[in-house]
């Protein structure tokens, strides 16, 4: 009976598995222990990229022009607000509203679709944690220590212990 009850609890976990992989490359600027700016570059896996590029690159010239980037921004990037951009910024155990982002751009690099955008969180690095992951577990965010650039201090990357999905945590030292 216990096994069956465990199975009921497992139903919530058994819901999805990742089909899109996004490598996250953060470039962090810290001044006086305040996180002034983070530029994120997301690199989507080649298979998902090929599918999206087919739609985005209307003139099929291998580059995105202004109009195409605007389309990506309006119809794809902005919809990720619903998922908090797969990025939870936590200050003293409280998840923050995702900050205003700037300088969105999109381009193709080595057959991969890339998104680039900047946030200016102005948060104390000591109190801040940044978690990456998709609660629906349809997208897998991939963060490695070597992907991160920081101008001051060091970063610790750890596996995120969620109950229903897998993610990464970035901590400032």
């Amino acid at each position: 009976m216990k096994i069956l009850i465990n199975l009921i609890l497992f139903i919530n976990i058994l819901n999805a598995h990742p089909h899109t992989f996004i490598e996250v490359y953060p470039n962090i600027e810290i001044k006086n222990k305040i996180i002034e700016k983070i530029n994120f570059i997301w690199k989507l896996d080649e298979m998902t990229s090929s599918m999206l590029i087919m739609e985005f690159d209307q003139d099929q010239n291998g580059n995105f022009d202004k109009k195409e980037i605007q389309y990506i921004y309006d119809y794809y990037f902005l919809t990720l607000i619903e998922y908090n951009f797969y990025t939870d910024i936590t200050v003293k155990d409280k998840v923050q509203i995702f900050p205003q982002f700037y300088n969105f751009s999109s381009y193709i690099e080595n057959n991969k679709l890339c998104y680039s955008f900047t946030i200016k969180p102005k948060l104390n690095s000591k109190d801040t944690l940044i978690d990456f992951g998709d609660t629906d577990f349809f997208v897998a965010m991939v963060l490695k220590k070597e992907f991160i650039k920081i101008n001051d201090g060091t970063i610790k990357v750890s596996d995120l212990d969620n109950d229903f999905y897998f993610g990464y945590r970035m901590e400032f030292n």
Partner: protein
Amino acid sequence: METYNALLNQIVMAQYQLNSFISSTIRSINDENILSTSILILSISFLYGLIHAAGPGHGKALVALYFTSNKSDYKKAFKMGYMISIAHAISALIFTFGIFYILKTMFRKNFNEMSMVAMEISASMIICVGLYLIFSAYKSKNLKEEKLGKQTKSEYIIALSAGIVPCPGVMTIVLFCIILKQYTLGILAAITMSIGMGLTISLAGILSILLNKKASNFLDNKGYILEILGGVLILILGILLFTSVGYK
């Protein structure tokens, strides 16, 4: 939960690496290496399917619930695992080729919308299977022979209801091959990936049969209670899937 998370991490990372390896290998195909590279891609697709299905998914939940609550043998677990994966692959091939040739643009949006419709159909079918299993377990708790025929029918319905949702993993590989004009390789990769997925789903079924055997010994001749409970759990799974689609 920590062990589960560590395992999940391993599964995700393995998929990430295999996904990247398959895409770069498909791109490297040329006239000289077509045979050896195709064999390599198909072998990796099998492994990818095996690992891909090891991640969370409603197919395994359904198979696990069904076999935990219904007496069956290992052969049937394999049969159902492969019926689900074949249905999964066929629907993925139909959806991918259909969307690509009919619509061409707005692929991902249409893919998402169509996946949701398929998920709703699947959830409705799972709800019906749950109701059917509860009704049949209650009605025929004393008529074991009559139940055998009904059980086979419900196994087909379960396989279809779980498999009707096209696997986005298979769809992505097929589409990637279509874009690179490797049509045959795309279809073959979908088939080998499905063979891998079928094996993993079958293993979930076998584990559930083992659980059922232990539970049946404990419940003695009141095994129908387990069957009713299994039906209720499958019903809950269907409702949860349906509401999660509605929520999105």
